[in-house]
């Protein structure tokens, strides 16, 4: 009924200290971790093919650079607030520790703690012999009969008390019953008086301040807490696992469910679906679905949207996560055409280039679209074909007169990564064949090459370069070796609102029915070192002599297989499609057979 | 049968779309 309040200010500092530490320690740890790892990832971004990143910055329009700067500033503002809180929090902690240390009341309470080792003046790890010898020495000093006669009664009683304590200390370390008491209650005499109370000073609870405190609690428990919980709950409920709004996801699912196979899947179709996204409506409630569609087409056709330019940039930035969400749903519905067109749409938005037979060339900077159709007698559609011509001729084909611009365009064109398949197989870790009902994965060895590089047949890369590590670690986790590769560098995307590095999406299709069998695997780690090599197809004359396989870096891609291998023995055919989300051209598309044997 | 008919009738439209694309 009646509580003791913290009159002497002994307990509330500990309470506040505990609460602060619970918040500050993980927050500080998180912040330090981000600082350390954030620095590291920037480092790898800088190592890899920085040409694309540099060019991307160079060719980006003023509005895009402003947009990027704004979003970086927003992020750092929040970080500054967090940092401020951490600094303020630790300052309060330091003050509290100092307060506790200097508070007499707390010190007094602390001295009531019974410490036998301190009383006997020995270390906590002393043996029984040392304990006994220490006791004998001290009892000689403090025994009432041994005390000097000159001491005052006060001094005497103090020393006698000390002697009692020393005896108790000795007993609590040696005598069974006393030791039990000490271990159980922290004192040899058994349970001491304990007090329970409220760790708050009385004035907060008893007087007029109490109404404020009650109001504070009511506000906290009745208003603030439910508000935050309901806001968090509705946020979680409204977003799917892939990070898109549930209404957008259900719209996409509905479109896929009602999809008629006679309908041709085009860029316009995907853009139309995209413009119905709930995220857009929430960002710009005053704009219509048709406006969103127009803005997306503006982005693809590199058209300025007037006073809706900023809206366009925000929508384009958001469409990245929406397209990945749609891709996930499309693969769940096993629809290959929509899956591939979704990735192509992302390319179109990232490069601001429409899907046409000439997309590979139109994604380059400084290209004059008219000259592509008129500039040359041969119909050139691919980067690979482009590099069969001399630089000057390329300038004519692309319609670039300025030599500096031509050099920049050529450096971008030769830095766009293309994947060349060297080896592909189904692998079961630890086995030499794929056995029935085993769990295989798809192991690809690829070469990241430039369109400028001369073609060479995959068998010119010796088998030794394509072997995986054969140790126990790699059998336990076959995918760990892919993580040793560097992250992808910045994409050349001067028309995209944010800096990005993108990825490759790997789709697996069952050849029997032509349908996708699992959700896409995203590949965001590959070495681009080969792109720096000057193995120009126009200058290499003798392939056998000039090609040195050991100078090339082999990329490692591992795609998990979502089902166990079939029960029956035989050959089963799968189509593997690896599409880039960033550039037109560097995709892989091949058939792989799974030989299931005993 | 009606679905078959619809799919057949879509041929002309598909031809237009692909011609434009390519």
């Amino acid at each position: 009924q009646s509580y003791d309040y913290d009159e002497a200010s002994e307990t509330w500092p500990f309470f506040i200290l505990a609460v602060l530490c619970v918040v500050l320690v993980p927050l500080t740890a998180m912040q330090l971790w981000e600082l350390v790892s954030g620095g590291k990832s920037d480092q790898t971004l800088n190592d890899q093919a920085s040409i694309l990143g540099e060019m991307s910055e160079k060719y980006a329009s003023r509005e895009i650079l402003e947009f990027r700067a704004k979003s970086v500033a927003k992020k750092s503002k929040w970080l500054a607030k967090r940092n401020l809180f951490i600094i303020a929090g630790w300052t309060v902690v330091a003050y509290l520790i100092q307060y506790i240390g200097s508070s007499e009341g707390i010190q007094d309470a602390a001295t009531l703690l019974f410490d036998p080792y301190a009383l006997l003046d020995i270390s906590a790890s002393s043996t029984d012999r040392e304990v006994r010898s220490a006791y004998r020495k001290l009892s000689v000093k403090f025994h009432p009969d041994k005390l000097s006669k000159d001491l005052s009664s006060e001094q005497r009683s103090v020393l006698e008390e000390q002697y009692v304590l020393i005896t108790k200390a000795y007993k609590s370390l040696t005598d069974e019953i006393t030791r039990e008491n000490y271990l159980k209650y922290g004192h040899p005499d058994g349970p001491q008086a304990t007090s329970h109370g409220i760790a708050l000073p009385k004035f907060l609870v008893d007087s007029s301040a109490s109404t404020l405190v009650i109001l504070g609690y009511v506000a906290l428990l009745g208003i603030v807490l439910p508000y935050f919980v309901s806001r968090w709950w509705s946020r979680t409920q409204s977003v799917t696992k892939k990070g898109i709004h549930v209404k957008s996801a259900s719209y996409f699912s509905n479109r896929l469910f009602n999809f008629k196979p006679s309908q041709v899947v085009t860029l316009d179709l995907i853009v139309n679906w995209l413009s119905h996204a709930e995220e857009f409506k929430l960002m710009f409630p005053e704009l219509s679905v048709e406006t969103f569609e127009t803005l997306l087409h503006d982005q693809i056709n590199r058209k300025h949207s007037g006073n809706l330019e900023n809206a366009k940039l925000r929508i384009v930035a958001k469409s990245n996560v929406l397209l990945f969400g749609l891709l996930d749903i499309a693969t769940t519905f096993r629809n290959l055409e929509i899956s591939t067109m979704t990735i192509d749409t992302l390319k179109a938005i990232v490069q601001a280039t429409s899907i046409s037979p000439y997309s590979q060339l139109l994604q380059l900077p400084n290209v004059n679209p008219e000259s592509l159709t008129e500039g040359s007698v041969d119909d050139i559609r691919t980067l690979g074909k482009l590099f069969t011509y001399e630089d000057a001729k390329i300038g004519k084909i692309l319609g670039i007169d300025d030599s500096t611009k031509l050099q920049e365009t050529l450096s971008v064109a030769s830095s766009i990564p293309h994947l060349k398949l060297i080896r592909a197989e189904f692998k079961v870790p630890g086995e030499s064949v794929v056995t029935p009902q085993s769990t295989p994965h798809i192991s690809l060895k690829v070469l990241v090459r430039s369109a400028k590089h001369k073609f060479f047949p995959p068998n010119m890369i010796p088998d030794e370069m394509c072997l995986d590590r054969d140790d126990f670690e790699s059998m336990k986790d076959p995918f760990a070796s892919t993580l040793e590769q560097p992250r992808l560098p910045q994409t050349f995307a001067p028309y995209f609102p944010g800096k990005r590095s993108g990825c490759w999406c790997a789709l697996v299709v069952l050849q029997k029915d032509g349908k996708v069998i699992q959700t896409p695997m995203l590949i965001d780690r590959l070495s681009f070192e080969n792109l720096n090599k000057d193995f120009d197809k126009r200058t290499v004359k003798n392939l056998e002599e000039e090609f040195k396989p050991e100078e090339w870096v082999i990329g490692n891609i591992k795609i998990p297989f979502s089902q166990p291998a079939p029960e029956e023995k035989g050959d089963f055919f799968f189509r593997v499609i690896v599409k880039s989300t960033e550039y037109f051209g560097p995709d892989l598309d091949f058939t792989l057979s799974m030989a299931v044997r005993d | 049968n009606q679905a078959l008919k619809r799919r057949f009738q879509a041929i002309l439209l598909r031809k237009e779309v692909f011609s434009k694309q390519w």
Partner: protein
Amino acid sequence: TLQYDANSKLLDVPDASEDIEMNLTQINKLTQDLVGETNPNFTPQPRDESTAMIKKLFENGLKQLQQQKMAEALKSVNLAIEMAQRKRASWEAFAVQLQELQFMMKNRVDLCLVQGKFMDALQDLDFLQNTGLTTSDVFIRKTDSLMKLKQYEQARAEVERGLSLDPTNAKLRVLHIENTRRLAEYNG
């Protein structure tokens, strides 16, 4: 709101969505077929009258083909197909209608290919694949059409799928090699 015209016996929904429009067309077609049916005891058995008409037109086409009159043959086959689309009622056995159409389409494909109408052939082949015909000869023709239309990437996808369903097919293998060569050239 559903509207019914007692004279034409047709249903209508103003401002209908695409899906509702489709349903309406289906119902109305069924109604028209029923109204036009003279035999009160009709069955799914295909009407011999229609079969005869369609067959006549088609055989006309075959004759013209033998006489090397390709353009006319194509026209006749087109007429035959159109006749089937118009005359066949919705309740006549699906299996029969499908086979009839597929058979005529296969001939149409070959006639188109011979005359260099590759896009037409491709769409017909797409139709055949979509309606369940996945035999090697479909893949062979589709690959060939795609190559002629310079769509080498799609041609590769088709020929590889054809080979995975029929790995020993010689013609498909030849097409695969040829397409790979053209693709390499396409990519410089």
